[in-house]
């Protein structure tokens, strides 16, 4: 008999901090430069060089800590994590082990059923990224690119508080939104600026004890996180139900084959021999610095969503979508500024509907939209004042998108102004009814569904410009009355 299994997930998210220079050297961090052109002697770990901590990375970590309501450590320690690998020039990674800069905090995620769940964050610490090994185009050799070596990372470690792949994705998206709000990470997952390791285990529902976990390394898309966890959960349950046991190990997700594979077991794991880095003094952060960072915090996603919901009478869902990025929130509010707060719901629908699909179609970010917020607001004003119907507005929007002109110009040029003249609509109805005697007879005999047929015919006759409400009323009267 199948047992009822509970899934337990914790995530370690690596967010690359958007500093201009590296965490311990002055070399640039820009992505995509020719190999080893952004690696200075410190990054190359030449004999005699020393690390100097980048103050901006510290500021960014503190920003994150304050945004999740965490304690900022007044004294934190950089430690060396020792292991040999060609892309790790010093033979150790400078990280934080005991005493990280950011202590315990939390974030709330919204589940599918609308309830919220609190996800604990154990800690967040500063560390440096390693370089990359290159294999492509190299026969019988491995290339080493140290441009990424020394790039600052904030490793954000969650509590094992997630109970499904969907929750894990919701949490990861939440962190993704937050770091971009704070402007501490560009969030670019393709370039590896935002990635995570997932710790996954299963246990019989009701059990207090955690099952043995597997760690899935280096997941760099929300889809991979979801699929990798789903696959890993299924693997573990199947293994246990067939009498096996899960072993603690590190696994890799193969997105091509949609499966996880063992990378190394606990026994093969490195002993990293962490110890405090004697080249760096303990990092001391004073109250005044923390307060100056606090004062620089922007409105956070949850605050913005709550404000949208209350100020604009939006649903929690809409408020969440519109506050998912600073840019989306700003766009939405700019549209509202034009069309008026009373029509915020209309603005919300358009930003999340037509605009969003147009952006998706062309793979554009909202701040690169072909239709600027005041222009969209202008279009919505024409819906509000009855100049055009919502349906016609979609046509106008497409024209605005492709032609770049404003709504009024397009409405005039294409003659799309709505017909609100009762006489004109009644005339069109009369003609349609007269031309379709059989449908009229059927309707009157009880085929109610034909009402839609008449609406369609009148709309066709008026090129879609008849005011829908007026048309409805007049048509009902005409068909009913004979």
């Amino acid at each position, binding site marked *: 008999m199948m047992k009822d299994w509970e899934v337990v997930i914790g995530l370690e998210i690596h967010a690359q901090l958007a500093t201009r220079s590296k965490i311990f050297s002055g070399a640039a961090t820009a992505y995509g430069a020719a190999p080893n052109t952004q690696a200075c002697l410190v990054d190359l770990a*030449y004999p005699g*060089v020393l*690390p*100097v901590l980048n103050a901006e990375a510290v500021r960014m970590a503190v920003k994150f800590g304050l945004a999740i309501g965490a304690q900022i450590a007044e004294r934190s320690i950089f430690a060396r994590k020792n292991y040999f690998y060609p892309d790790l020039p010093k*033979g150790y990674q400078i990280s934080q082990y005991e005493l990280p800069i950011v202590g315990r905090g939390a974030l709330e995620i919204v589940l599918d059923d609308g309830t919220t769940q609190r996800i604990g964050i154990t800690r967040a610490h500063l560390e440096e990224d390693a370089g990359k090994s290159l294999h492509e185009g190299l026969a019988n050799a491995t290339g080493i690119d140290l441009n990424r070596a020394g790039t600052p990372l904030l490793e954000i470690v969650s509590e094992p508080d997630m109970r499904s792949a969907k929750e894990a994705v919701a949490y990861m998206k939440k962190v993704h939104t937050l770091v971009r709000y704070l402007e501490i990470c560009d969030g670019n997952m393709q370039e590896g600026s935002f990635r995570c390791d997932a710790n996954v285990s299963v246990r019989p529902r009701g059990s207090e004890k955690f099952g043995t976990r597997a760690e899935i390394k280096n997941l760099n898309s929300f889809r991979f996180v979801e699929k990798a966890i789903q696959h890993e959960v299924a693997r573990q349950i199947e293994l246990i139900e067939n009498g096996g046991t899960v072993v603690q190990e590190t696994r890799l997700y193969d997105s091509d084959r949609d499966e996880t594979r063992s990378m190394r077991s606990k026994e093969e794991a490195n002993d990293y*021999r962490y*110890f405090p880095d004697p080249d760096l003094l303990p990092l001391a952060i004073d109250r005044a610095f923390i307060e100056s960072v606090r004062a620089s915090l922007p409105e956070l996603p949850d605050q913005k969503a709550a404000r949208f919901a209350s100020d604009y009478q939006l649903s929690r869902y809409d408020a969440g979508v519109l506050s998912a990025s600073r840019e989306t929130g700003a766009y939405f509010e700019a549209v509202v500024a034009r069309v008026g707060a009373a029509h915020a719901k209309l603005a919300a629908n358009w930003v999340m509907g037509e605009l969003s699909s147009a952006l998706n179609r062309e793979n554009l970010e909202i701040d690169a939209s072909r239709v600027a917020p005041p222009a969209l607001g202008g279009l919505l004003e024409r819906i509000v004042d009855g100049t055009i119907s919502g349906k016609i507005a979609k046509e106008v929007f497409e024209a605005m998108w492709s032609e770049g002109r404003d709504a009024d110009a397009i409405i005039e040029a294409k003659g799309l102004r709505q017909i609100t003249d009762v006489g004109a609509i009644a005339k069109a109805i009369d003609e349609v009814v007269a031309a379709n005697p059989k449908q009229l007879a059927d309707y009157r005999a009880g085929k109610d569904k034909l009402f839609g047929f008449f609406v369609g015919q009148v709309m066709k006759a008026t090129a879609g410009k008849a005011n829908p409400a007026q048309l409805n009323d007049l048509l009902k009267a005409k068909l009913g009355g004979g």
Partner: protein
Amino acid sequence: MTWHARSIAELANALERRELSSVELTRHFLERIGALNGALNALITVTAERALAEAAVADRRRAAGERGPLLGIPLIHKDIFCTDGVRTSCGSRMLDNFVAPYDATVVARLKAAGAVMLGKANMDEFAMGSSNETSFYGPVHNPWDLDKVPGGSSGGSAAAVAARLAPFSTGTDTGGSIRQPAALSGITGIKPTYGRVSRYGMIAFASSLDQAGVFARSAADAAIALGAIAGFDPRDSTSVDVPVPDYAATLDGPLAGLRIGLVKEFSEALEPRNGALIAAALDVFRSLGAKTTTVSLPSLPLSVPTYYVVAPAECSSNLSRFDGVRFGYRCTDPKDLRDLYERSRGEGFGAEVKRRIMTGTYVLSAGYFDAYYLKAQKVRQLIAGEFGAAFQQVDLLIGPTTPTPAFGIGAKIDDPVTMYLNDIYTIGANLAGLPAISAPCGFVEGLPMGVQLIGPPFSEGRLLNAVHRYQLATDWHDRAAPGYA
């Protein structure tokens, strides 16, 4: 008096009076190196051409009106300091082919002061040793007796100054590597406060203990040299932003009322002839007005075991970068990555370095960390605390620099523990980050011995002042090794 017997101040005066040029002075020392280094093996690399070019630049600077106590004065750098465009071997096969692409801060500061680099001094491999016998380039011979070691790890720097191949040299001191060779070679050597001199460009052995300093024949010369290299460096996070006093200006201050404490733990069980020299030195200081007393630092005997946990732990990590991938020695035809690492490191490092890497790896390992590394850190705190308490009672501490005079080449090299005990009196100052100086104080069996003074943080000026006054009252520091006058 021959030029090589002159003090730095005398040489600077001679240069200023145009009695000779820096090029002539440099040529004089290069000739001396050419004649004497063969027997001493004090230098790994002689940079003759470059030295003459630097000397010519110094002469032009002086002609243009520039002054400076080191303008045109030759020196030798320990081969642990990176020197742009010059091999920087650290005494190891691992870096035999390594030409540094930049100057260490110490090197850059001396260059800016106009000092002329004659070459790079031999040293124990990666500064790990107390006899200069672990060098890939062979042992250095003590000018006082060529069959004896000069001490280590800065053995080449010490022997070179003792043999008057240069007026001064740089060194580094992690557990005594300046003071012990200074004592065994009959010269003056100062290890400043941790953080006083930048470690940038100085190849790391044990980062929390390493400190650069200088060798000279007298405290007066050392004061000039130290003044040039000391100071805050933003490239070294552990360097301290405290103003550098004019060490030369305070050399002559009276010692009346100076409280000097003889370290009880140093004086117990001291070999009688060594004890007599320290007692005599105390007499001199008393005659100069100092008050002497005895001070106890009960945890100090734990210095050596503490050091041999902390230093190897740090070195095991510091030396990981020597992996055959980017620079330095690489084994021939590695069959895979593991083979590349194992053979490059196995063939590139010598036995003492490997011993310390293995010791360090062990003490940092899961399950041993608390018992060794953590406990050693606690003892280190304890020792530092006892020094702090002692400096509430006295201004300076005094004791021997070494237990014995220079020993024979080969005598201790196969017995690491006996070798490690050489640093029993010097390690405490490193663990506590304190400045300390060794100065010649007499002879045992015809070989020089040193007296050590230790002070509170940033008391370099006081240490140099005390030793300078001592050297005005004695002539131990003026004795030249036979054949090197």
